[in-house]
């Protein structure tokens, strides 16, 4: 620590801190444009000039480290004079078009000009004009307003990991842009909107819809990925969400959010938003009041139970639902004798669910990801799945940590990758077994029961050795299972092998689970075999896949569209259409849902309901609703409460959602989780006999994960919202006679689909990537099962 004096105030500052940091900590404001605490120092705007005793000239506070005894004046005549001079320069070319600028009212340039600008400019020359750039559907540009602080450029290079924007040209001709016409493709690109101190980069969907001072800012949590980024929602007129920005939380999302979390709010006002309860009578839909709709639910469910029994009823919920909703749904179902309860719609292998941890979690705090020295990612496209986790891992990677992957697609992670194994999903287990075998040899530890036999045929490769050593050497290391491993048809084997690897290398096993409340769903007991708090259920019901395969008589849906969200979309669609009674608690009504549902109850989506989400690190985050529910919509926890009472169930007299939360907290208070499960030797791994079998990689398309994202227009217009296609590498395309851009037919389990072919050499051999979560690809059957492809 050093002692310094700022404006007469004596303070202690960290050795090596910059003057601007010390001043910020001491609550002394220094104007700035280019400085940002999360970015490198550029010191190019010069707005932060200050006077330092004994220094001949004013110094930039953002690039001057403190020294012991330093005496700083931020508001002395000399400092103010320098700051005003800089301001004058900055305004020479600035258009001063605040009345038509979206940033007006929340603009750093405007604010600082109020303090340091002068009324009249000495410059009479013409101002420069810069042609606008088209950066894609998310970011609007007015480049004439740019003051060249380069925050956006540094963000790309340092945080997003991809340098797309740059400062081209020189002097007066400098321009910020991509130079060539191209959209920015980073999944975190929206952050430059917040970073830009002026109105050069603003939100395109928000454009011209409100003034900053008309908006009220409220707190919420992003429901999409398992990170649970903290958000601030900007509300207009007390009822409409018009914009979403990050809420700083150093432990979770720092100052950033993903584009998904930023722009998904658009779905709240999509055309197919369900605003009133609807009832189908004789095949025709009509709007009804809540009472009629709820009565129809009571009659429908009771009839099914009486006619066919409670075991012919099933409940499916989206893992993006709130904790309160999930808890009440399973409570209601169980009281009515229904045990077929699940939220794992994309899962294929349930064989080890009894041994599963109380809730599969990240195994560490989110911010610890960046402290890892070695990380093995299995079946994970972390950059697109959980952009914030990718950012943490990138920090580790850039620091020199060894990031390694086992994937079916050679994703570009925008970070240094030490080793990668790109192979068909069917081959994952061989690769993991190889790594485990290499570890056994390296660590000379005894093999667990049956393992020798299991891997006798598996050969250790150089990659296995490299990955094994990296994990052993790393003092902090992790093996992370992504959605493509969790939802793999052999997930239990992968899990077992991954666990063995972590035990041998003393690393942490973690899950990068799919959705915002996957952990919450496990906690709440939205499972066929466990009740809230991870305790075994008295009677184990059917899991999501069985429920759809068996074709139940009635289904209760909470925020899900199983016809695209299930691993078996075709079977799901058939089961729902064949059922006698389907009630959907939903925020949106789709064509398909109108087909299979009998009652649709409009429930409040994210932002319209109080909610608790538990993220991958096990953090409970509760927020209030930020806007009132649209139309006749009601928060789902209230709907479930009323249903509980109408069904005559006990314990449904909650007054607030807090009462529900308190109850869940009480039930889960002793919950301890540990991802390690008891070793149970998987079936022997033969040499890869099915090497020639083509399998489908069923990755969920980046913006198709849940019903909100799928309806967020701007996100759907981005590059990441890939259209449904048959993506295959060059060699395979040649083998099957396929051509890029030409249509082909994919057949799987008696189902067929015709889609354009995209030749993509990042796809591994013997596999084909057909994104799921899309209506256009939902007609194809089981995820991951062998598939055949032929030209049309």
């Amino acid at each position: 620590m050093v002692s310094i004096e700022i404006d007469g105030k004596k303070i202690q500052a960290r050795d090596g801190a910059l003057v601007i940091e010390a001043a910020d900590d001491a609550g002394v404001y220094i104007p700035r444009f280019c400085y940002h605490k999360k970015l490198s120092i550029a010191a190019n705007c010069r707005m932060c000039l200050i006077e330092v005793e004994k220094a001949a000239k004013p110094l930039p506070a953002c690039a001057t480290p403190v020294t012991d005894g330093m005496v700083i004046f931020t508001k002395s005549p000399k400092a103010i004079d320098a700051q005003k001079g800089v301001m004058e320069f900055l305004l020479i070319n600035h258009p001063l078009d605040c009345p038509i600028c979206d940033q007006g009212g929340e603009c750093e340039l405007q604010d600082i000009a109020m303090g340091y600008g002068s009324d009249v400019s000495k410059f009479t020359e013409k101002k420069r004009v810069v042609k606008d750039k088209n950066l894609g559907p998310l970011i609007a540009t007015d480049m004439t307003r740019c003051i060249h602080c380069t925050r956006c450029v540094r963000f790309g290079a340092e945080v997003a990991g991809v340098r797309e924007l740059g400062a081209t040209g020189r002097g007066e001709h400098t321009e910020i842009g991509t130079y060539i016409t191209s959209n920015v493709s980073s999944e975190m690109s929206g952050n430059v909107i917040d970073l830009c101190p002026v109105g050069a980069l603003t939100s395109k969907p928000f454009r011209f819809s409100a003034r900053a001072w008309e908006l009220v800012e409220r707190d919420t949590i992003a429901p999409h990925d398992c990170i649970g980024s903290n958000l601030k929602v900007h509300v207009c007129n007390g009822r409409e969400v018009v914009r979403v920005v990050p809420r700083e939380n150093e432990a979770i999302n720092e100052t950033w959010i993903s584009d998904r979390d930023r722009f998904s709010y658009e779905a709240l006002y999509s055309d197919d938003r369900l605003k009133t309860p609807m009832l189908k009578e004789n095949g025709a839909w009509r709007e009804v009041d809540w009472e009629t709709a709820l009565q129809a639910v009571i009659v429908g469910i009771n009839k099914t139970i009486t006619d066919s029994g409670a075991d012919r009823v099933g409940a499916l919920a989206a893992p993006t639902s709130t904790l309160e909703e999930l808890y009440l749904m399973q409570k209601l179902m169980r009281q009515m004798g229904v045990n077929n309860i699940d939220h794992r719609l994309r899962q294929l292998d349930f064989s080890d669910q009894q041994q599963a941890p109380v809730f599969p979690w990240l195994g560490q705090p989110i911010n610890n990801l960046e402290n890892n020295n070695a990380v093995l990612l299995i079946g994970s496209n972390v950059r697109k799945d959980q952009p914030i986790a990718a950012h943490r891992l990138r920090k580790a990677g850039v620091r020199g940590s060894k990031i390694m992957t086992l994937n079916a697609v050679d994703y570009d992670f925008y970070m240094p990758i030490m080793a990668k194994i790109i192979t068909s999903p069917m081959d994952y287990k061989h690769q993991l077994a190889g790594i485990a075998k290499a570890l056994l040899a390296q660590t000379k530890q005894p093999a667990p029961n049956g393992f020798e036999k299991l891997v006798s045929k598996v050969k250790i490769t150089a990659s296995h050795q490299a990955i094994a050593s990296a994990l052993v050497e790393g003092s902090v290391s992790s093996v992370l299972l992504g959605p493509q491993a969790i939802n793999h048809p052999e997930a239990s084997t992968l899990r077992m092998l991954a666990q063995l690897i972590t035990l041998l290398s003393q690393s942490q096993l973690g899950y990068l689970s799919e959705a915002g409340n996957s952990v919450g769903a496990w906690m709440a007991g939205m499972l066929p075999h466990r009740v809230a708090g991870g305790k075994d259920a008295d009677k184990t019901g059917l899991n999501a896949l069985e429920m759809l395969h068996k074709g139940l008589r009635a289904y209760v849906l909470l925020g899900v569209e199983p016809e695209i969200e299930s691993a078996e979309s075709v079977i799901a669609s058939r089961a729902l259409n064949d059922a006698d009674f389907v009630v959907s608690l939903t925020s949106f009504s789709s064509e398909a849902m109108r087909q299979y549902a009998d009652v649709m109850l409009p429930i409040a989506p994210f932002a319209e309901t109080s909610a608790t989400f538990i993220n991958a690190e096990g953090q409970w985050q509760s927020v209030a609703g930020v806007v009132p529910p649209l139309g006749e919509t009601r928060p789902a926890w209230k709907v479930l409460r009323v249903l509980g009472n109408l069904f005559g169930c006990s314990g449904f007299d909650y007054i607030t959602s807090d009462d529900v939360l308190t109850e869940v907290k009480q039930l889960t208070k002793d919950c301890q989780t540990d991802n390690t499960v008891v070793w149970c030797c998987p079936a022997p791994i033969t040499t890869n006999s099915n090497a020639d079998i083509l399998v489908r990689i069923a990755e969920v398309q980046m913006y198709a994960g849940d019903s909100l994202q799928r309806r967020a227009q701007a996100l759907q217009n981005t590059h990441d919202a890939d259209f449904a296609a048959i993506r295959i590498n060059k060699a395979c395309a040649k083998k099957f006679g396929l051509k890029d851009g030409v249509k082909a037919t994919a057949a799987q389990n008696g189902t067929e689909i015709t889609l354009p072919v995209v030749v993509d050499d990042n796809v591994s051999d013997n596999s084909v990537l057909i994104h799921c979560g899309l209506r256009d690809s939902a007609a194809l059957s089981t995820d991951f099962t062998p598939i055949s492809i032929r030209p049309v």
Partner: protein
Amino acid sequence: MRTTKLEKKPVEVVNNSDLMLISKQSYAAIDKWIAKYHPENRQAAVIPALHIVQEENGGHLTIALMDELALYLNMPTIAVYEVASFYSMFEHKPIGKHKVSICTNISCMLRGSEEIVEHLKKKFAINLGETTTDGKFTVKEVECLGACVGAPMCLIGREYHEYLTPEKIDAILEKLE
């Protein structure tokens, strides 16, 4: 199955089929420059490399050439664009046979560069940055070339010409083929 093991700081292994616009000879010349720096700092060779590529292409750069170079030097394309658009010795469209770069920076300006510029504009009936219709001359304005002592000055090809007057520059241009 494909597996790769990369060193700690990965240098993308460039697939030869991606490199086709720049000739082998030029790559050999670029490699000499790359060899002067630490292997992790290939990109330090970007300026000489751009010169080599520009010369081979008859005096100007194209996006495709810069992209190829970016790949070879393991740098983001935008970073190559930044360098190539910053320095005035790099051209982005075809230029005339002789490039006359007139310094208009402070010393030259004080010593009469404006007069030279006006003279040339009138003489060729073109604006700065343009090429004569016969494709012989391109006249452009550049920043200080470090020859202030002989201001006003210009650069033609690889030669500096100092203490310019309208008559002197006429005489110089006269001699050019």
